[in-house]
């Protein structure tokens, strides 16, 4: 087993166990920690395949921003005095079946796309991204910006609607 596959295995284990903790933990702060582990592992996968820029942005936006906001919200929530609730569901079997089916679909769909090893990885450092975004993808990039602006305007309209 080479060093690369060891790193890949560790990242995979962290990602999967983080996901499991996120779903099954009964304490919200534990869930947040699980989600954090999962997001770090995803950033690790990006770096592993050579997309260092994307990996760092993943850390910056999802760990430093989104997850912190989530924990911030959790801290403001009232803590139940009689412990955490139990998880009950009447759809256990169906949910497992759907999850398994989805997993199969994702694996079959992605098998041809995801590179087998680091050597065939995608190189998308800042220079390559720069060339793409300011070159052939410029229109798409600008359209993304316009879309985000429209979303912001929509939020202002929705939130400010009552005042008038």
């Amino acid at each position: 087993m080479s060093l690369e596959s060891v790193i890949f295995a560790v990242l995979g284990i962290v990602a999967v166990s983080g996901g499991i903790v996120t779903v099954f933990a009964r304490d919200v702060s534990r869930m947040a920690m699980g989600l954090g582990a999962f997001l770090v592992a995803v950033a690790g996968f990006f770096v592993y395949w050579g997309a260092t820029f994307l990996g760092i942005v993943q850390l910056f936006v999802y760990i430093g921003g989104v997850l912190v906001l989530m924990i911030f919200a959790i801290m403001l929530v009232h803590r139940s005095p009689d412990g955490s609730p139990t998880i009950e569901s009447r759809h256990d079997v169906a949910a497992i079946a759907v999850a398994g089916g989805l997993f199969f679909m994702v694996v079959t769909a992605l098998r041809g796309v995801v590179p087998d090893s680091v050597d065939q990885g995608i190189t998308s450092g800042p220079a390559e991204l720069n060339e793409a975004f300011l070159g052939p993808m410029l229109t798409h990039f600008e359209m993304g910006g316009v879309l985000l602006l429209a979303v912001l305007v929509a939020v202002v309209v929705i939130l400010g609607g009552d005042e008038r």
Partner: protein
Amino acid sequence: MSGLAWGALYGLAAGLVIAVAALIGVWGERKVAGRIQMRIGPQELGPFGLLQTLADTLKLVLKEDITPAAADVRIFRIAPLIVFAPIAMSFVIIPYASGFAPLDTSVGILFFMAVPAISVIGVLLAGWSSRNTYATIGGLRAAAQMISYELPRTLSILPFVLLAGSMRPLDIMDEWRWWWIPLTFIAFVVYFISSIAEVNRGPFDLPEAESELVAGYFADYSGIRWAIFMMAEYGGMVAAALFGAVFWFGGYLHLPGAFGVIMLIAMATLLAIGMIWVKWTFPRMRPDQLMGTAWKVLTPMALVQLVIIGVVIPWL
């Protein structure tokens, strides 16, 4: 496996460097604070009291590691490490000598900004898991403050990315010219202030305000875990000083080998003394002043600096 071995070696070296830097930092802080308040500071143990912090560390390590009965034990125990590890990681991208940075990556600048941001989570979890009102308030204040000041801090580094056309620290150092110092002065002011806020030091120490919150998010910690929080704070200060010395003052100034490293350490020491000086000179800010400084003063200043650089670049 040589990559992994080198990584482990760097990790060990970084841990040692941060520990020693924290020891010297605490000693320096007490000495500078003493002089500012017309006292002498530590002087009994060793020359100039240098061994005082070592004795304090021994005391901290030997103290009982108390976990409050109401605390969320696992998160409480792991939180100091989540605060410390990212700070330790941020040391790897700093170019210490001509052509040498432990981790030479094309996204170095972003790495230095993004990775320490993880420690905010540790601070929040520490405050949350203590199940203590003071700790929770401290954690909330810390998170709001650290996220707000990340923005001007990141903006203040962008001038170098524009000037050098690269985010690789070694590329920026190759391009570095002396007249960048006056050109990026506004950015330096923004960086210096927001770095102090980012490591929760005075006058931005609202999260751990002693007179209001006892010690804020680490009020319930004792012994070695408390020491890890302290090491994270001093490590963050040293990393910020090193990073500032490298980019705003040219770091090793293209001097060969050890001379460059000594130059860099000397400049970083001056910056760190500046941070200590600020802490013991200014009174603690109010929360509204804190947020106002970040959003209404520092962020516009950083944007003005960016515009200046953008206008000047075609004539360079």
